[in-house]
């Protein structure tokens, strides 16, 4: 049997346990909207009776109440890992899709604002030039043709410049991401340290673990980082198999490689370990997609910006070569021509300067006198007609452009579809996580009521004991 006052103590342990449970419930309810918060439960254990008078003593041994053994953090490591993996994949495709989509939108195709429409107008102006050869409208038409040629050149140059700017913006964004990677790694290392200190001294580090999980998920979203849980409760983080965070120390990475689009092929942008200068393998996440879009040209499968810039260069070169050789090829009777006629190979329409073809393309003639358009002495306008038909020829800039536009469309469609799939996987993982670890208000309310009643009942036990003791002490044996 317990002592006279033993039951009071038992009831008190019930009061304390109920209060602890209500505290934890309060914490859960307070964090119902907190991102990354994992619900907690107070772990209770009943306390067995302590008296063991003799080995074979009889009599029921009544327990001595309840004790709080800890505060459990109700997460599921498998689901947490799934959240990280899917965050990495969706980070990759979101970024890749956004990059291609930016390029795609800048094309303005199909429509009147696109390069194809400018090229069509250019070829048409050559027919007008041929029509007006030798007539009084020739000089005016020559200005129109030259203007249209300059428009084509400037559209190509603008497209190239846009690709180059987008590349630089993306590189800056990658640089920012690297800063975030380093600060997040340090944050995780610091949390590892705090968690270890707290748990070693028997404390509750649940909230710190929530913070660490959130930090790891954002790191996985950025880089596809993987983790390993250590026996002491700390978590190591790996980037492409190499350690980024080992317990309470973090390494840092730096961005290296070309600073502008033109050098992207020769010096690809990549990440390096700050300590060893060896390259970092990035398996997934936003940064992997950023690095992929920053890659140099590689036969149509390289980085999207470099490939776009490459297409503009090809367009400029093809345009200049095709138009100029058509002009030179048909000039059957060079020499002795009056101005504006058929000087032949000496009268190219386009010139390419130094540097990237797309930015150095320029129109040579200043007025009618520089434009070759006739195949014989006089004004037959045949050469102009030949040039005007180049747009439909195989290997023409128009064909190159149409193929490119269609390719970008396919790539963008694929990336958007992949991004959709990845997002839905990420959403599903997140939903599983909120299902497992999220706070359910109904449940908390139920717990609240339960523990409130537990508290009230424990208090009632004390009242009952009090009244019993009152009977025993104040009323027993008195006359």
């Amino acid at each position: 049997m317990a002592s006279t006052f033993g039951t009071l103590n038992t009831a008190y342990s019930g009061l304390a346990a109920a209060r602890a449970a209500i505290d934890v419930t309060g914490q859960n309810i307070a964090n119902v909207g907190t991102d990354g918060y994992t619900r907690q439960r107070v772990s209770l254990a009943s306390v067995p009776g302590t008296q063991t008078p003799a080995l074979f003593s009889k009599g029921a041994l009544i327990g001595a109440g309840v004790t709080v053994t800890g505060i459990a953090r109700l997460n599921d490591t498998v689901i947490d890992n799934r959240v990280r993996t899917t965050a990495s994949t969706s980070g990759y495709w979101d970024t890749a899709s956004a990059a291609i989509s930016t390029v795609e939108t800048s094309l303005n195709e199909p429509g009147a604002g696109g390069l194809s429409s400018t090229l069509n107008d250019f070829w048409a102006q050559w027919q007008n030039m041929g029509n007006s050869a030798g007539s009084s409208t020739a000089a005016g038409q020559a200005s129109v043709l030259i203007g249209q040629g300059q428009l084509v050149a400037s559209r190509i140059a603008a497209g190239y410049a846009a690709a180059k700017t987008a590349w630089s913006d993306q590189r800056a964004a990658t640089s920012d991401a690297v800063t975030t990677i380093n600060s997040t790694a340090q944050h995780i290392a610091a949390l590892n340290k705090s968690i270890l200190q707290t748990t070693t001294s028997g404390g509750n580090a649940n909230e710190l673990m929530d913070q660490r999980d959130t930090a790891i998920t954002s790191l996985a979203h950025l880089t596809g980082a993987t983790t390993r849980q250590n026996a002491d409760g700390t978590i190591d983080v790996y980037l492409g198999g190499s350690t980024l965070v080992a317990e309470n120390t973090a390494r840092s990475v730096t961005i290296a490689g070309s600073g502008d689009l033109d050098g992207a092929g020769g010096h690809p942008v990549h990440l390096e370990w700050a300590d060893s200068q060896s390259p970092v393998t990035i398996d997934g996440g936003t940064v992997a997609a950023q690095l992929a879009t920053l890659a140099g040209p590689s036969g149509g499968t390289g980085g999207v910006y470099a490939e776009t810039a490459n297409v503009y260069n090809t367009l400029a070169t093809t345009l200049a070569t095709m138009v100029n050789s058509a002009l030179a090829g048909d000039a059957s009777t060079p020499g002795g021509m009056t101005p504006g006629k058929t000087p032949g190979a000496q009268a190219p329409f386009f010139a390419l300067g130094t540097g990237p073809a797309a930015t150095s393309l320029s129109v040579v003639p200043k007025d009618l006198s520089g434009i070759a358009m006739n195949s014989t002495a006089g004004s037959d306008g045949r050469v102009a007609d030949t040039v005007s038909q180049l747009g439909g020829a195989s290997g023409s800039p128009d064909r190159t452009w149409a193929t490119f536009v269609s390719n970008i469309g396919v790539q963008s469609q694929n990336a958007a579809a992949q991004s959709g799939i990845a997002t839905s996987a990420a959403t599903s993982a997140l939903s599983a996580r909120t299902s497992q670890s999220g706070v359910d208000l109904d449940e908390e309310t139920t717990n609240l009521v339960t523990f409130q009643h537990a508290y009230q009942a424990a208090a009632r036990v004390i009242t009952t004991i009090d009244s019993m003791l009152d009977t025993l002490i104040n009323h027993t044996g008195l006359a």
Partner: protein
Amino acid sequence: MNLRITSQQLAYGSAGNMATTKARLSKLEQQAASGAAITKPSDDPAGTAAALRVRAQQRANTQYSTNIADANSWLSTTDSTLTASENLVRQAIDVTTQGANTGALSPTARAALATQLDGIRADLLGQANTKYLGRSVFAGTSDAANAFDPAGTFAGVAGGAVQRRISGTETVSVSADGAAAFGSGTAGSPSVFQTIDAISAALRDTTGASDSAITAGLTGLQGGLTQMSAVHATVGANYARVTAAKTTNANESLTLETQRSGIEDADTTKVLLDLKTQEVAYQTALQVTAQSIQPTLMSFLR
């Protein structure tokens, strides 16, 4: 099986569903407002390639229509010039026929006929040097200021055809060969102007020694008229081709626009129907969310 549904999960799920429905709604609204099914290449990459091709054909077709209009003007100028020239040659033949009655005419009358012929020659030279937008229509590909010099010699390029492209595969010659129509004026092939000069000179020759030249000139003028009519027939044939091409071009333009619209434009009826459906879906999502987010056990405990 995890049947635990938390408040946060409900909120995330509802927000996700509403965002998806809203995205679909926005896409349809964009299609309905712009009327375009393809606003960017990824909407339909194959369709975009086709649209670019059709747009290029449309632009080319528009240009052919401009070319056809130009060819039409050029040929109608040539046509009316040739009609006027034939009339002038016929007048010259009439005058020469009168002058061929050598016995019945006084020298004064013959001189008057010669003067009349000189006038006709001047008119005819004017016709032969007709210009369209600053170019001699009978000079072929030549840049010569006039197809015939004052002496009546052809200064252009004989047989040099100025062409206009009336379709992707067809060109039509818009210039008439001045040397064929009026004669080149070189040795052995006198131009109509030189023939008239010869007749005029013979009429003024009061000695009668050149009277045979008048008859020869008459034959020459008749031959010239035949040649001119032959060239006129060629111009007429080209004119007919251009007229036919105009109809073809207009039909082609319609066909291409139909094709472009078929590729690029949204099916309005379908888009509007889908839009209505999505609107209902969105409103339902809002309503359902409003109903499911609100109540918790808290609302029922007092």
